[in-house]
């Protein structure tokens, strides 16, 4: 029962973060600088989500995250689709754990 209440509370605070922009964002901005800021956020956000967090995928074995990430960079650099980028990174990590 306690876990159930915890899950509900987690759901509530998570939805709160998602619904705030809906409640407080009125008219579309047409200030070019603000528009540009919003267009750049995806790139800064994804970068911040990946680095340095990826190094701690396995806290006891930092090379796992590092090599997995480098593999993903290499595969996407040669224009592999997301599917193969993800599979490649998982496979190299499996290989590293196996040996």
């Amino acid at each position, binding site marked *: 029962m306690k876990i159930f209440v915890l899950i509900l509370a987690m759901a509530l605070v998570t939805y709160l973060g998602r619904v705030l922009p*809906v409640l407080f964002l009125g*008219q579309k901005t047409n200030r070019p*600088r603000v528009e540009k800021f*919003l267009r750049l956020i995806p790139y*800064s956000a994804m*970068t911040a989500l*990946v680095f*340095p967090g990826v190094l701690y995928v396995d806290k006891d074995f930092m090379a796992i995250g590092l090599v997995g990430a480098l593999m993903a960079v290499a595969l996407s650099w040669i224009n592999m689709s997301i599917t193969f*980028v993800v599979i490649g990174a*998982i496979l190299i990590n499996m290989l590293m754990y196996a040996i």
Partner: protein
Amino acid sequence: MTNKEQYLLGVKTALPVILGILPVAVAFAVLSEHSGLTTVETILMSILVFAGASQIMAVGMLVAGAGFLPIVLATFILNFRHVIMGTCIMNRILTIPMWKKAILCFGVTDESFAIFTTTAEKNSTPYYFAGLISVTYSTWVIGTIAGCAASQFLPTLVSRSLGIALFAMFIGLVIPNVKKNTQLGFLVILTALLNVNFNYFMPSSWAIICATLVGAFLGVFFVKEDQEEAPE
């Protein structure tokens, strides 16, 4: 495009991302089952919360003996980045009624944000977003169920290797754009450095939010965009 075509385009665009989400869902389910949550609780959390990193953190904190309030507070802080992501997404679909946005915003996640905001602006419509999140949400829930079923006999080798999936997906979404625009590459390096530094004096979830905002703010001054449209 008709509404239906926009929805289907969203579904189609999200298909490759299944592979980024599924492993994380399986990993969460395995962790959750091993940390003493029942199968029903595990699946219910995925249905109601729908935020991978915070779910994984929550079961980790439960194992470590954390109480109710710290876990809820950590969840709120960790998921606070959705405010920024939601702002970017809602800014493109402002015209639809409030109640529709109140439903669609449940689908704001790292993944749906990543795909939606890297889609050309003319295609990033409400129906397109609905298509995207139908795929991401069902993948997350089905992946959790599959993970619960498999948790008994999934080799550790496999479950441990799944953690990289989400990171690989973000890398795969950013790199093609960096290749096209060198200054975007500088923005990526700058943001990474900012994030490393912020990590020294704040919890990492706040560091991510600050690095995202400061990085994009500085980028406004030095990134040159090729076209008006966001690159795809």
